[in-house]
């Protein structure tokens, strides 16, 4: 990927001020995403996946503070851009879909109108025209009878249908990047497959890059070009999907693969991940936050935590990658 990446996150650190101390949610997070590429961010809950997504969109809540790093999108550092510029870009150049779609839609406003709001705001479309364009967008996400459905409210639609509306809203102005935060976690398996296929097809057709945040390693394998594995606020390994599965080098990635029930696996093959996530409020955290749970731990682990490029696009943050 020689040309300038669409999105380049570098050395990103985020902290949350809470009553019970400062949580160092993210530390030295870095990855790049080319135009039209799909990157998956995988990790257990509480690993900081969603915080990364929210930081990119600039919608972290008030208690959060970005203490370091840069998020360069299309040549502009989002962290230093003004709120006005960000507001212009959100929904037009970068868009997001969320986990439980029904809660993420305005309960007392017809879904058609919610799409029109975005079209009127970003695509300077006249209200009358916006109504027709909104119906087109609904049709584009395979919603049957879009004319009638546009007047429906979220409580009248199924989970899968609501997520399609979310996708229609996100892609209304054909953004360059789609961030998807656990988009299908609450949905049934069959609906999940349909939604993921829909997102993949639309992304390919529009040449849109997408960032898939998920705890389901299998989903990431199936739908992402490359995958970043996160643990306790660190990116421990980034690699093309096939390579990551065939030759994982970080101990945590290996354990994660071993602990995920796969079609071919037998109960005996599965191994649990020992221990738990470290308490991110402590200020004496070691450089490698996996060391407490790692059986490959050596003295080098206490000094620094390198990010070694062991193959094209395959980087691992470990002193003893095997």
């Amino acid at each position, binding site marked *: 990927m020689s040309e300038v990446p669409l999105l380049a996150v570098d050395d990103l650190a985020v902290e949350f001020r809470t009553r019970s101390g400062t949580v160092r949610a993210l530390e030295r997070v870095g990855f790049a995403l080319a135009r039209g590429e799909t990157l998956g961010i995988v990790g257990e809950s509480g690993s900081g996946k969603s915080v990364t997504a929210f930081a990119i969109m600039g919608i972290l809540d008030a208690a959060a503070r970005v203490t370091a790093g840069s998020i360069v999108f299309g040549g502009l550092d989002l962290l230093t851009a003004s709120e006005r510029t960000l507001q212009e870009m959100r929904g037009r150049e970068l868009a997001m879909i969320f986990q439980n779609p029904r809660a993420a839609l305005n309960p007392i406003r017809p879904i058609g109108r919610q799409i029109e709001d975005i079209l009127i705001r970003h695509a300077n479309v006249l209200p009358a025209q916006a109504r027709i364009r909104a119906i087109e967008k609904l049709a584009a996400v395979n919603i*049957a009878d879009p004319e009638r459905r546009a007047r429906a409210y979220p409580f009248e639609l*199924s989970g*899968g*249908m609501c997520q399609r509306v979310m996708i229609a809203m996100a892609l209304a102005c054909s953004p360059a990047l789609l961030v998807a935060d656990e988009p299908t976690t609450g949905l*049934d*398996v*069959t*609906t*999940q*497959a*349909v939604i993921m*296929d829909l997102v*993949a097809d639309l992304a390919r057709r529009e040449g849109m890059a997408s960032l898939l945040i998920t705890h*389901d*390693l*299998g*989903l990431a*394998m*199936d*739908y992402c070009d490359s995958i970043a594995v996160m643990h306790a606020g660190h990116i421990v390994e980034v690699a093309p*999907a*096939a390579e990551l*599965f065939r030759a994982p080098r970080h101990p945590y990635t*290996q*354990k994660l*693969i*071993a*602990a995920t*029930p*796969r*079609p*071919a*696996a*037998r*109960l*005996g*093959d*599965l*191994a*649990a991940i020992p221990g*738990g996530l470290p308490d991110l409020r402590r200020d004496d955290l070691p450089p490698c936050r996996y060391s407490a749970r790692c059986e490959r731990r050596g003295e080098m682990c206490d000094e620094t935590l390198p990010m070694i490029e062991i193959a094209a696009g395959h980087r691992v943050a470990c002193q003893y990658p095997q």
Partner: protein
Amino acid sequence: MTALLSVDRIEKRYAVGGRGLLARLRQEKPAFLHAVDTVSFTIGRGETVGLVGESGCGKSTLVRLVTRLIDPTAGAISFDGTDTAAVPAKRFGRSPLRSRIQMVFQDAEGSLNPRFTAFDAIAAPARRLARLSAAALKARVEEVAALTGLPRELLGRFPHQLSGGQKARVGIARAIVDVSVQVVILRLLDDLKRRLGLSYLFVSHDLNVVRLLCDRVLVMYLGKIVESGPADAVFAQPAHPYTKALLSAIPSFDPGGKRNAVRLSGEPRSPIDPDPNVCRFYGRCPKGVERCATAMPALTMVTPDRQVACHFPETEPKIARSAADKALNGETLSS
């Protein structure tokens, strides 16, 4: 050998609407939601049967019927030879069978009384059912806790002071059985099955987990069982189109993903007063034909241990095991 549990044409219907004062005045005939519709199956002694289906298919209602938390609208359940439907749910608490049919909840958090310590939670059923003396009760609770790998000093803690895994173990200790995706818990279930000779009805929407643990599997769709058989056989050659769609929807760990998968279109039919002679899957089924809309396919024996409820079951192996699956199988990364 007689089955430990046999369920015969069980049904459960809930009245929907039409119960309000106004509705009764206008004599509106109340509509009925057919949550469970003539379901029959058996569980052998020491056998683990998986119950798979998506939300709204009626599996949780079926479970509450089997554990006698609710009364069936029709049909019979016999446990170890005695008819359990005779004792109404309200008074089932006092029947000797109560202690022999237990249930564990997926959501460990919600299933523990926030006001009870771990000890109380485990002791409650034993105290009610086994009528043990205090000392005997304490010993029994500690024994069961040890069996499920719950450290003794945690017994005095409240739920909000326990981690997810510990809460799941308390749930297990309470009912000796738990369902949770975490490998350690799955491993524990398998271990307990051998040591205590338990039989499970293992309910999940995650087919990978079901395949790991279950001998046989039942696939449910909108209140009816559409396919049942040995787990490996059903997973290898699904006969019912819905099972095929379910299986192809599971992430296959085949990088680059497969685009020829079977995808369901449209929305599920309404379970309220469904037309008795239209196949519940008609409309979404890739193979739906005119006959499916006129005659409800019955659950018929396809091979000695496999049943399918479809006019056009696929018995011969259609989808060859994908190359990737075979490669992966040989080269698994056990620790």
